[in-house]
């Protein structure tokens, strides 16, 4: 008999170790290294390139600068509170009451969520701006309407754009509440408002906070809206952008320092929220979900009025944009009559933006899907130190605002040997880094539901582990991958924050072009571009709904 002496475990080089290594390298080069460079340059003097704390001193020394941070927080907190106040009852009514036109309302909510905030901002300018149709209408009647510019306008735009996040999260949680819980409360003599307050509210609170975080991060990081209608109300992303792009010699180091401050702040908030939610969360599963009931009388009217008003206001910007895209225009002035002139001008002058958006978007989404599946697989199935690092690093983009990522990549790749600035590659890299998490999270979520014995069965039947991944695991993962990829795709084609920093004339995309056209007050072409973008978004969503047979997307 052979001796039972311990053999040292042989290290075998296999497919997954190669994948791990390649992904580790990619993240090191395109995320960790640039972020590291950003922090470093925040500590350097822009003229002498010597180490200094001067940039930070400058930021906290001048009210103009630190005021922007305060502004950002004030606005974001108000937006988060307001979206919770609107989104939560909306979700509650939509799941517990019979609502007329529920199917259409659900789609409208998703569409208003998916279209970028700055398009909303821009069409509110068309409506309520200084020359807006609503403003003029009331001015003719001698009524002075409140300004859309500044704090109030941004609060309106952000709230209408972001309440769907709360709505979707709370709907998800409401679906998991078993009707028996509600019935148990009633049997114990608890009903009406009291039941909602003591049973429903505590059950959905963790979900509301999770949705609130998403709203908070989105509002804090948004760049387009404050640029378009912020005017005097300066926020961090706009401040960073203007300092960086500044035509009188960009203050890259100062911008980097501010970006570092912002990343730090968002990281702290993100971690704190995770900590509190994890402490408070519980799992629910329902056999019998709550069924919508018919409500009668004045209550029914009020509920319907509330829902239609909110959803109507949220979708109004999209309708305005589509309508104005068919108007005759002369730059900022809309003329009599309808035509396709705006679209013709796009084909003549801005065809490249449309082509770039689809081309870069498709390349990015292909990379996102492949990376998302591989990373999800190694992080859940091949747990080790390296895959854990990858898993953590992929969370970074959640806390990095788009404009900050743009600056980060630009600072890191504007010299040899990795001279990427101005190329399509750097645009695609920013898309992938920024929108990979959606696909990754939902791919990982579905992997947890696939039993490892499924793969072992395939291996035992003679398929190699790699073959098994492609023949079995990948197919089983598809529904989860798709539902994440749709979100990645839609946010990629609508990306503005990082693109506006990274683009050049050759690599301009639709969202950047819209932004530029609005700044130049070419409202006709802006509207036409926005319409194409919105149409792409809606069609993508519809195809996705058709493919998966559900009306849900995972956030």
């Amino acid at each position: 008999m052979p001796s039972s002496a311990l053999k040292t475990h042989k290290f075998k080089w296999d497919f997954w170790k190669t994948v791990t290594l390649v992904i580790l390298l990619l993240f090191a080069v395109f995320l960790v290294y640039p972020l590291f460079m950003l922090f470093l340059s925040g500590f350097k003097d822009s003229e002498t390139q010597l180490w200094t704390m001067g940039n930070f001193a400058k930021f906290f020394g001048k009210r103009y600068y630190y005021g922007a941070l305060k502004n950002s927080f004030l606005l974001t907190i108000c937006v988060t509170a307001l979206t919770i106040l609107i989104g939560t009852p909306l979700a509650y009514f939509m799941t517990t009451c019979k609502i007329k036109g529920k199917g259409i309302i659900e789609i409208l909510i998703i569409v208003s969520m998916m279209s970028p905030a700055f398009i909303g901002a821009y069409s509110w300018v068309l409506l309520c701006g200084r020359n807006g149709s609503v403003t003029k209408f009331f001015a003719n009647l001698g009524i002075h309407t409140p300004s859309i510019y500044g704090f109030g306008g941004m609060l309106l735009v952000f709230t209408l754009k972001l309440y769907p996040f709360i709505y979707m999260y709370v709907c998800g949680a409401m679906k998991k509440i078993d009707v028996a819980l509600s019935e148990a409360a009633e049997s114990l003599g608890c009903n009406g408002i009291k039941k909602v307050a003591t049973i429903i509210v505590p059950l959905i609170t963790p979900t509301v906070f999770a949705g609130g975080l998403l709203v908070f991060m989105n509002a804090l990081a948004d760049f387009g809206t404050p640029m378009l209608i912020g005017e005097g109300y300066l926020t961090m992303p706009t401040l960073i952008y203007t300092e960086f792009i500044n035509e009188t010699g960009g203050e890259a180091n100062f911008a980097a320092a501010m970006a570092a401050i912002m990343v730090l702040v968002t990281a702290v908030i993100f971690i704190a929220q995770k900590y509190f939610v994890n402490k408070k969360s519980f799992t629910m599963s329902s056999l019998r979900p709550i069924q919508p009931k018919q409500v009668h009388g004045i209550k029914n009217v009020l509920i319907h009025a509330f829902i239609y008003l909110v959803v109507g206001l949220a979708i109004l910007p999209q309708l305005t944009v589509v309508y104005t895209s068919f108007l005759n225009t002369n730059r900022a002035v809309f003329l009599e009559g309808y035509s396709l002139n705006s679209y013709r001008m796009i084909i003549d002058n801005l065809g490249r933006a449309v082509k770039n958006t689809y081309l870069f978007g498709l390349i990015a989404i292909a990379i996102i899907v492949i990376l998302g599946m591989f990373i999800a697989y190694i992080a859940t199935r091949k747990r080790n130190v390296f895959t854990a690092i990858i898993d953590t690093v992929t969370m970074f983009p959640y806390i990095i605002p788009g404009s900050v990522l743009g600056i980060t990549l630009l600072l890191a790749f504007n010299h040899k040997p990795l001279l990427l600035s101005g190329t399509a590659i750097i645009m695609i890299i920013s898309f992938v880094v920024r929108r990979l998490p959606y696909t990754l999270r939902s791919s990982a979520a579905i992997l947890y539901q696939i039993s490892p014995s499924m793969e072992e069965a395939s291996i035992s039947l003679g398929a190699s582990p790699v073959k098994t991944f492609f023949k079995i695991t990948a197919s089983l993962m598809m529904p989860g991958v798709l539902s994440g990829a749709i979100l990645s795709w839609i946010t990629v084609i609508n990306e503005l924050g990082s693109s506006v920093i990274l683009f050049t004339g050759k690599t301009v995309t639709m969202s950047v072009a819209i932004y530029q056209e609005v700044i130049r007050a070419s409202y006709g072409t802006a509207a036409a571009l926005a319409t194409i973008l919105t149409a792409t978004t809606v069609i993508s969503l519809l195809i996705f709904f058709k493919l998966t047979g559900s009306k849900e997307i995972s956030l």
Partner: protein
Amino acid sequence: MSVSIGINNVIKKYGDTTVIPDLSVQIKNGEFFTLLGPSGCGKTTLLRMIAGFNSIEGGTIQFDGTVINDVDAHKRNIGMVFQSYAIFPHMTVRENVEYGLKLRKESKESMKKKVDDILRVVRISEYQDRLPQNLSGGQQQRVALARAIVIHPSVLLMDEPLSNLDAKLRIEMRSAIREVQDQVGITTVYVTHDQEEALAISDRIAVMKLGIIQQVGAPESIYTRPANVFVSTFIGHSNLFHAKVSRGGSTPAIVFADGYRVEMPNLCDGAQEGQDVVVSVRPEEFSIQPGMKAKVRSKTFLGKYTNYVLEFAGGMVLPGQPSIEFSQDLGHAERLYNVGDTIELKPNAAKINVFTEDQEQSLIKDVKKYA
């Protein structure tokens, strides 16, 4: 096609914890071999080492004498049936069964024939175009079995395949599995924690505890002549008594704590005068005859027999046993007893087992640990 499996001094470690310290067992070609033990005893770990899903930290596993330690799982030509069935949900029943054959580049005609045959053997031909989600648990289990067998594996490995089925279906599938195995004659290693299932289905059983094999043998010998107290109590119920060996008379005997004496001609020569021993008596090995006195504490009527829970005088039985039981076969019972009655019971000397005081060894002649 089928092979014998040699497991020699195998070691399994997870980090610093040793799950299997040193295990050897030989599985014959074509036999139905069961690994039985409580959860955490290492039986599934061992099965997965044979399959190639767990690494081997020491020793060797051989198929027909060839060491397979470093052969990748997908090249070992094994058929495996999982506790969760692991039927591919995106393929029909037929596609599931074809999967392994396609990987083996089987020709269209021979694949069709093989699949048709196996579907008939496991009786699922009528469901072949359905998706697995439309099948019951028992049907899914049959698909899993067909898929594993159709590739003519060298060994068939089954990891608690029946534990997700309800009691009635479990018994039905148990005989179905045995029947199929008899027809195809593949060496089968079967893992279960259900001793009744193991007794019913196996050619031989290995009883495991904490990564160590306690006894290997045919179901009857494991039940009637357990090699140690663990096996005797894990398989079926056993009442454990304190006793001493007495070699005074012409035949050796054991004397219980109350002085009751039972002559045991089959006591091995190692049992010495005055030695403290543990006597294991199964509930059905008692009969109502003059012997040891016990009080009836509760009774359960079970149709074919009545089960009494007994109380013996202090010091008679080993402490910490779940219950001391006597099964009265109702086909031959003269009278039934009530709670509170005192009865006299005589253990059947030809059936009961005697173990050393440390409970590790049987003192009955010719009891083998590995058979």
